[in-house]
């Protein structure tokens, strides 16, 4: 797709922003614009926005809490409301829940420890903009690296997420105690995905696996087909 334009937001403490930019460039052929948390506006004509992993603001108060109140997030919320696809990975997922763009919260891992390894995931909804390149029920492997990945929401919210097909991916093994093994959720409109595992760290064999490529390819395919 020519002219694909994406933005990667960098917060103080982000550390996966470059990996995300490389994935968007290499897999999507995207022009990637780097945006700073203090910017009040996003570049115009964006096709995609990514909130990367890391430890924004040192995880002060709660993971993602400070970043969620930074100037750029008002612009991201507005763009999401207009239908621009937004992907939040790891700390980006935490920022999206803190902003209220996604339901639930990400709490300390049930085992207390930081978990940094490859995990098996199962694609729950293979119809979404982000997951259309996978088969429903397919098992894939992504790396995780987080301390606060334990997804929590009340039962009514969990029932609604499952009923509406908004659970994009689940853990296929025990990782962090997440409610109903949820690893990634979509917003109501399906254009915002937050997930703890890192697709951008699995885009070529040298990474140990390339299952993440299809997530980015799905987005390109979905936007071309739209």
């Amino acid at each position, binding site marked *: 797709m020519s002219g694909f334009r994406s933005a990667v937001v960098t917060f103080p403490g982000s550390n996966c922003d470059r990996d995300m930019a490389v994935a968007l460039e290499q897999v999507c052929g995207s022009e990637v614009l780097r945006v700073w948390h203090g910017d009040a506006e996003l570049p115009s004509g964006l096709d995609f926005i990514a909130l990367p992993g890391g430890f924004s603001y040192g995880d002060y108060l709660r993971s993602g*809490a400070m970043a969620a*109140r930074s100037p750029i997030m008002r612009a991201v919320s507005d763009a999401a409301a207009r239908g621009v696809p937004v992907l939040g990975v790891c700390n980006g997922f935490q920022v999206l829940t*803190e902003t209220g763009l996604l339901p639930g919260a990400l*709490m300390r891992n*049930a085992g207390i420890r930081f978990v940094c390894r490859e995990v098996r995931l199962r694609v729950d909804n293979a119809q979404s903009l982000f997951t259309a390149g996978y088969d429903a029920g397919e098992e894939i492997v992504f790396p995780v690296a987080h301390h606060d990945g334990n997804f*929590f929401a009340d039962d009514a919210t969990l029932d609604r997420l499952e009923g509406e097909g908004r659970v994009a991916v689940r853990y296929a093994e025990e990782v962090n105690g997440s409610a109903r093994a949820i690893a990634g959720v979509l917003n109501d409109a399906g254009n915002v995905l937050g997930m703890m595992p890192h697709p951008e760290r699995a885009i070529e064999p040298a990474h140990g696996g390339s299952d993440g490529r299809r997530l980015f390819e799905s987005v390109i395919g979905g936007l071309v087909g739209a």
Partner: protein
Amino acid sequence: MKVRIHVSLKPGVLDPQGRAIQHSLEGLGFSGVNEVRQGKLIELDVDPAVTDDQLDEMCRKLLANMVIENYRIERVAQVESAQ
């Protein structure tokens, strides 16, 4: 004036840190601790003109995450804060 914001996990929300603390207490030989829940204490020094409604809004918008946490606002008496 001093204001203390007590942030605690809602009942029913699992608290792995609290559980680990409980296990540590048991390991130190303390018995009879039935449960530990870890929260946060945030102290603010605010102008007397800051209203309860404004403090409430601060809690809802930033200091507590209403999905998982409750909060309690405590205005600390001037006498105590002067000591």
